[in-house]
């Protein structure tokens, strides 16, 4: 039982890198160790009070469940403490700067949470009579209007559940349009730049397309000449992120769009980085045919530890007729959902199908709309400007301490590579892990793939200059330490977090994906 009965015995920093004294409990003041909920099982305890129903004749038809499930029995105070303790092991945007490039970790206003919990929003059923949910349909219609205005696109599908689901929706609309043109067979290729998010090629491949990579120039942008050479009558679409994953605006985007359309193909834009241009540039003016919008990035809905997201897709006039069901229309007797193929036929549209049951992520719609209304047209434009300003400030301040592969200005994120670490024995991963000890969540690492040892920093517009200055000073100090042979600060990092580096190789080699009760003890001899 290492760690016990060692009160007061100092442990040197060098040994195992542990900077703190060992404790009896394994806790370290506010850092509390916590068992799995299954290990808190105390038969007889319960976290809810439910009365047994009065005796009745069951009608389960002989399918009654037999035996124990294995769920633990725990009271409410213990459950509350358990999850509060777990929460304390997480970094969050509310606690500090979260510079994950391409993820747009901005402030999540609590007004949005309050609005999502109004009984008239959170406690309505998707299949209630439409006359009893007119306000909800109005809300969806209003959100659709804002998204169309901000993108300059004539149609939007609200239902996709997340960014990648939106990509799938957009690419399905493209394929539906090609089917309608009788060119589905002929067009089998989708072009994706090397710098793209992994979801882009995965989405295209899911729809049976052959994915082809477009090279990126030394300036970090699509190689226009190489791209034009790849275009042909067998290309269905290009999937491009703009601003791109190097944090740069694709200067040739209008030429790219023209070339795509001339070749009879469609232009899908990954809208993950819309935060950089919202209110300043409308994708519709760039010749884009479909683009998803991550409401959990640009429009501040919380990431929630990995979801739920929401990925509405805006469409050009060419693709609008194929947008999926359901959608909201406004008629003589108020708002109405067009839900079924029969409804759509009566409405005179040709949706390609349905992405999900019900109508999409209403809980995210209301949060995003609250955010948009709070900012307004003027505030949203300021969002893009401040996001770009903060990123350029980081780039300008750190370009001599770290190494930047491309000339600025950047858009909403600043990209660095690992040349500044050359010969130090410190790698991108180590550098990032050392940031954890300094109280920061690391930036996005090793993405985009076109840059060696990439470090992608997106500060967002909700960071103050003071916060960004301290962040910059911290990275300068880390860069100095790496270059001055203070290798241990990095290669063993993090030292101070609730857990140190975790063995991911072992986790994948023999996966343990669920808790199992300990094997029964052998009978005492």
């Amino acid at each position, binding site marked *: 039982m290492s760690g016990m009965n060692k009160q007061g015995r100092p442990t040197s920093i060098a040994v195992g890198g542990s900077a703190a004294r060992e404790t009896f409990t394994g806790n370290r003041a506010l850092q509390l160790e916590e068992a799995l909920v299954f290990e808190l099982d105390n038969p007889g305890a319960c976290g809810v009070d439910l009365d047994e129903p009065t005796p009745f004749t069951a009608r*389960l038809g002989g399918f009654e469940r037999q035996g124990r499930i294995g769920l633990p029995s725990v009271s409410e105070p213990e459950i509350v403490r358990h999850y509060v303790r777990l929460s304390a092991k997480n970094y*969050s945007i509310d606690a500090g700067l979260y510079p994950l490039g391409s993820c747009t970790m901005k402030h999540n206003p609590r007004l949005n949470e309050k609005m999502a919990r109004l009984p008239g929003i959170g406690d309505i*059923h998707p299949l209630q009579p439409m006359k009893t949910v007119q306000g909800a349909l109005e809300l969806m219609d209003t959100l659709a209007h804002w998204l169309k205005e901000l993108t300059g696109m004539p149609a939007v599908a609200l239902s996709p559940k997340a960014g990648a689901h939106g990509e799938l929706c957009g690419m399905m609309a493209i394929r539906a349009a090609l089917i309608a043109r009788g060119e589905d067979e002929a067009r089998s290729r989708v072009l994706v730049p090397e710098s793209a998010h992994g979801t882009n090629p995965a989405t295209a491949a899911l729809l049976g397309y052959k994915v082809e990579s477009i090279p990126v120039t030394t300036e970090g942008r699509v190689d226009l000449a190489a791209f034009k050479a790849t275009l042909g009558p067998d290309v269905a679409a290009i999937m491009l992120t703009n601003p791109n994953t190097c944090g740069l605006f694709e200067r040739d985007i209008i030429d790219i769009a023209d070339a795509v359309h001339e070749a009879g193909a469609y232009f899908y834009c990954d809208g993950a980085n819309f935060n950089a241009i919202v209110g300043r540039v409308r994708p519709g003016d760039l010749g884009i045919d479909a683009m998803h919008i991550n409401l959990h990035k640009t429009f501040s809905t919380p990431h929630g530890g990995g979801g739920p997201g929401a990925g509405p897709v805006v469409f050009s006039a060419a693709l609008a007729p194929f947008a999926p069901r359901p959608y909201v229309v406004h008629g003589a007797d108020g708002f109405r959902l067009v839900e079924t193929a029969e409804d759509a036929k009566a409405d005179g549209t040709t949706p390609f199908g349905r992405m999900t049951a019900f109508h999409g992520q209403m809980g995210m719609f209301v949060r995003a709309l609250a955010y948009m209304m709070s900012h307004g047209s003027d505030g949203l434009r300021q969002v893009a400007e401040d996001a770009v300003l903060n990123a350029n400030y980081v780039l300008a301040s750190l370009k001599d301490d770290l190494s930047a592969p491309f000339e600025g200005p950047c858009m909403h994120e600043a990209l660095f590579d690992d040349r500044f670490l050359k010969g130090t024995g410190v790698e991108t991963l180590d550098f990032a892990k050392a940031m954890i000890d300094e109280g920061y969540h690391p930036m996005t690492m090793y993405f985009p793939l076109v840059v060696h040892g990439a470090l992608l920093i997106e500060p967002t517009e909700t960071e103050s200059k003071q916060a960004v200055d301290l962040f910059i000073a911290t990275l300068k100090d880390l860069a100095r330490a790496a270059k001055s042979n203070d290798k241990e600060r990095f290669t063993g990092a993090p030292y101070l977090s609730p857990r140190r580096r975790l063995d991911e190789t072992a986790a994948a080699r023999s996966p*343990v994906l669920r808790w199992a009760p300990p094997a029964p003890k052998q009978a005492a001899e």
Partner: protein
Amino acid sequence: MRYLPLTETDRSEMLGVIGAKSVDELFRDVPERARLAGLVDLPRRQGEMEVDRALSKMAARNVSAGSVPFFVGAGAYRHHVPASVDHLIQRSEFLTSYTPYQPEITQGTLQYLFEFQTQVAMITGMDVANASMYDGSTGCGEAVLMAHRVTKRKKAVLSGTLHPQYAEVVKNLSDFADYELDVMPPALPGRPEDIAAHIADDTSCVVVQSPGFFGELVDLRPIAEAAHAKGALLIAVVPEIVSLGAVTPPGDMGADIVVGEGQSIGNGLNFGGPYVGLFATRQKFVRQMPGRLCGETVDADGKRGFVLTLSTREQHIRREKATSNICTNSGLCCLAFTIHMSLLGEEGYKRLARINHAAAVDLAERLSKVPGVEILNRAFFNEFTMRLPGSAADVVDALADKGVLGGVPVSRLLPGAGFDDLLIVASTEVNTDADRAAFAAALVEVL
């Protein structure tokens, strides 16, 4: 603007460091003709009070489920969520953290995902579960794709028990991914399907829902046997996850993949989303599973910890060769599920299920006494289908006018299919005896 910390002084100082004269200069890579000179045509910024007022006004135009006797189900169910659940999921550390890609500082998220996976595996009777899908319907589509990968076949059979919108999601995905489907007609209670007759040598999987769309419980065992005899998989779909507190889990009846909608535990109705898709399977298929997985490991000091694992299946590593294009899961909804399930525990979960069943049995008894009403189900959990003497949509409309939300007319999801007189109703623990009496009385009046 209250969410933007930079002041004009900050901005000009920062521009100085950058060496730019204005912010416009930073946008110089945008083609000139695409730069908006002015503001988009939308309202200007508003204070918190004004936004609150405007959205509250919209919300007030809706009839909330808690304000009336409420019996609407068909894939989304109103249950009581303990107050501590919503309180805990709003803790900043859960609400405002990202996907746990840095496990050293996201053990909170990773540990609850591990607990979630364990709970889902336990209640479905399966070996392993993933860290959730977007919802039940999209999970159902992913399950079919997974069965195609496992069996290296391309054809799925969809039972008529499947929720019509789930079936549409699967059909949409299958059409675009160039897979085949055999879609069976809606399976009304009392008319057992001959699924075995649809399973052929090229069948990859059969998708069966229990409780079915019409509320009927399905014996999965003979279907599993028939599927396995032909080398096909059984995908069991459970849209009302509370049912598994009372009903034999699909894992005990031979299912190879179980897909569930977890909304009922911990999550509100939210007009259809966000919800949380449950996805469980056998150990031997784990590497063909879509979505995120959390696994146990140790850290550099030998302490137990958790990480995202088997990510070589996923798009950010495998790109076009990934098992799925999915990136996000339904993190916060998983957390709500996990906390609520932990509060319930073994006894609470089972008792909640019994209360639901008792409520539905009581409702069925009351409604069966209404002249002209016929209950079609033999075995059901908390939801059943009844035949009315006229249009169910008209009845639901008239009931709404009387302040009762009385279920889902089948014609809303299956228009023009000859089901205009069928109504699906659900009763859960939130309904009181008085609610059910009010429903029966209102139904007598409108018929």
